[in-house]
């Protein structure tokens, strides 16, 4: 009795499972991805028409909250009927959720352009801004070279010319900050001209009983250190080939080994803050602002905050090359904003993007440590912001702005993060580390 009961129950459960799975396998509509409604191309009757109703735009972003707040305030002052609601996310959260966010029904109207946007644009989830480009005349306000980064290699259905999937509001670059007071204490009299000279300065800081270099390697901070050194050792063209996935490119080169070995060596010599691997990038910045280290590796997005806290006591220089005559090379990208195809207010979103190209916005961007897309429209910055602007100009002139290495593959950020942590802790051979990166690269680009 008990046994037949159990058997019957099993049969029933089995039948249920089969009944459930059968329609699943039979139905093509259940193939993942097939149900994601791609909104059609929106017709934009008049991109420059100012909407005359109360509108709220939602803006999701990951970089420079202070700058975004200031831009929004200035924009709302000019267009009182359009409100912009900022939604800040930390960088890793933002990138990880980008695809879900932008394909959901509740996608923000405006979103910061990031690595995954290329795929999203190809699938029609990002609004093609080419008609706006013509209507607003952005080619005059923004150097076209900055816009070319944002075309995702597509032609525009609306204009037949090149598509446009974002408008840059500030360009970024990584480099080294230094605490002038502490540097003086350690006998360091100014930015170094070569990597070797920088090493001497780190040694001097160590000798003076200070923490030489602040690194926040818990998240992406370690990757900036490695990339900064890699930029000096590896020919820029080889690096670009690798990041862009050009066939046959490799990161397993003697140059990359040299850069990785430097990261290990500096760790062995105790140049990093002791807890580099346990410190987030924002935390390392806060510690540097308190005077915990002489140098700090970070990007210009931290400049606004550091200038506010440290005033004239902070300076900046791009990582120097192996020889003083080497070109200035640094990782950087533009902080740009894209518009969702799902937005109900494409005109208002276009208006906001156009505002980003104005001299007023350029000034706000510059005040927050970013390079305004059009440097001629802003007045000369001061202090650490001037150091950054000067470094960026040099890098641009040397054609030395390279993107970040995690652009090479979607999973590269995770490999880089854990790999550099191991380098810092001297737990991996540089060759093995590079091998793990190349494996990931090949897996992605084989598809």
């Amino acid at each position: 009795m008990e046994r037949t009961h159990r058997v019957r129950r099993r049969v029933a459960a089995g039948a249920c499972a089969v009944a459930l799975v059968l329609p699943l396998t039979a139905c093509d509509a259940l193939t993942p991805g097939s149900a994601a409604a791609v909104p059609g191309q929106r017709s934009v009757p008049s991109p420059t028409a100012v909407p005359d109703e109360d509108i709220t735009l939602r803006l999701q972003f990951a970089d420079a909250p202070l700058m975004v707040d200031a831009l929004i305030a200035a924009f709302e002052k000019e267009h009182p009927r359009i409100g912009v609601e900022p939604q800040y996310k930390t960088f890793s959260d933002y990138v990880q959720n980008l695809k879900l966010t932008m394909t959901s029904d509740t996608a923000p109207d405006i979103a910061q352009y990031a690595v995954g946007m290329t795929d999203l644009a190809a699938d029609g989830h990002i609004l093609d801004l080419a008609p706006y480009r013509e209507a607003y005349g952005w080619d005059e306000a923004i150097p076209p070279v900055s816009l070319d980064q944002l075309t995702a290699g597509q032609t525009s259905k609306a204009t037949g010319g090149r598509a446009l999937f974002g408008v840059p509001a500030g360009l970024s670059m990584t480099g080294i900050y230094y605490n002038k007071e502490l540097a003086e204490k350690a006998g360091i009299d100014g930015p170094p001209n070569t990597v070797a000279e920088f090493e001497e300065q780190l040694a001097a800081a160590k000798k003076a009983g200070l923490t030489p270099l602040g690194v926040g390697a818990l998240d992406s901070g370690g990757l900036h250190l490695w990339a900064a050194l890699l930029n000096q050792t590896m020919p820029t063209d080889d690096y670009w080939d690798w990041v862009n996935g050009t066939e046959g490119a490799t990161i397993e080169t003697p140059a990359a080994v040299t850069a990785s070995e430097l990261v290990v060596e500096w760790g062995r010599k105790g140049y990093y803050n002791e807890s580099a691997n346990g410190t987030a990038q924002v935390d390392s910045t806060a510690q540097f602002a308190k005077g915990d280290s002489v140098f700090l590796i970070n990007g210009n997005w931290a400049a606004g905050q550091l200038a506010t806290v440290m005033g004239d006591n902070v300076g900046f220089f791009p990582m120097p090359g192996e020889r003083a005559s080497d070109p200035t090379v640094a990782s950087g990208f533009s902080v740009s904003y894209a518009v969702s195809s799902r937005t109900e207010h494409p005109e208002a979103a276009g208006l906001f993007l156009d505002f980003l190209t104005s001299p007023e916005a350029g000034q706000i961007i510059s005040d927050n440590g970013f390079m305004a897309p059009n440097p001629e429209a802003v007045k000369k910055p001061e202090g650490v912001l001037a150091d950054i602007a000067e470094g960026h100009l040099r890098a641009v002139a040397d054609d030395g702005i390279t993107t970040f290495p995690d652009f090479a593959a979607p999973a590269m950020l995770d490999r880089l993060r854990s790999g550099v942590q191991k380098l810092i802790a001297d737990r991996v051979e540089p060759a093995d580390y590079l091998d793990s990166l190349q494996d990931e690269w090949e897996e992605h680009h084989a598809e």
Partner: protein
Amino acid sequence: MPSRPQVQQATKARVEPQDAARVQSPGTRRRSAYRGYVYVLPAFAVYFCFAVLPALHTAYLSLFEWDGVTLGDWVGLGNYQEILQDPILRRSVFNALVLVVFFSFVPIVLGLAMTGLLARYRRPGMGAYRFLFMLPQVVPLVAVGVTWRWLYGDDGLVNQAFRAVGLDGVTRAWLGDFGAALIAVGLVGTWVLSGLCMMLFLSGVQKVDPSLYEAARLDGAGPVREFVSVTLPHLRGELAVAMTVTTVAALASFDIVYVTTNGGPGEQTTVPGLLVYRLAFSEGKVGLAAALAVVLGCLILAIVYLINRLSRSES
């Protein structure tokens, strides 16, 4: 899980007086036995829609190579094959098993110890103790993680405490240290789950017939003997529940790890839950993530089954 036996008992209780009165035909008996299922139906419907269906959907997704946006490709069991060959995955399963020690074993021992100390004697402020030990349970795990990240930090309370007692050499960035990170994360789990175990055991003790303790004392049993001979045997059911809940928490851990270390340094604290999240959201390998989730789910089910089996056969 306990719903079915209870329901059967309830129906039996209602049927039995009639049994005594007259011989019942098998048909009526079966009908009333099935009536029990009607009561379970609403709960089952909810459970089916929000647990079973998504689980089946996940299993279905695991058969595709899908980036989360564009149309997926059918790859059959290919994702499972890939998972079994991945060294990072094997490492993450090992980490999860280490976490079982800190999330399950240690909290249960601590919970038992606290129960032994708090259960049998009325002392002033008992409510406050219970509240304090239970507190970690009501705080969201993300908040717990953020708080402990501060505590473990360079100038955090943990290092300050070590410095205060002259152990300067011991201090380090706990979450960034290759040797200490996993243990540090595990201890956060210990902190969270000990209180839960204690509450479970305390409530179990309250069911024990006081005369048993009286008898034990008359026989000359001290507090330890009393705990071992009377309290512990009565807590078998609670022990099984505590083991199940805490082991699942360890194997399925995600939030604490994500917030404190994000799997680092290196792969020292990478757990399968974190990999599922990464694969699905940052690496665009939704099918692979689903396959890993299915494997993890099966592993957890197997272990929970084992725990239940063991605890039942002992009793």
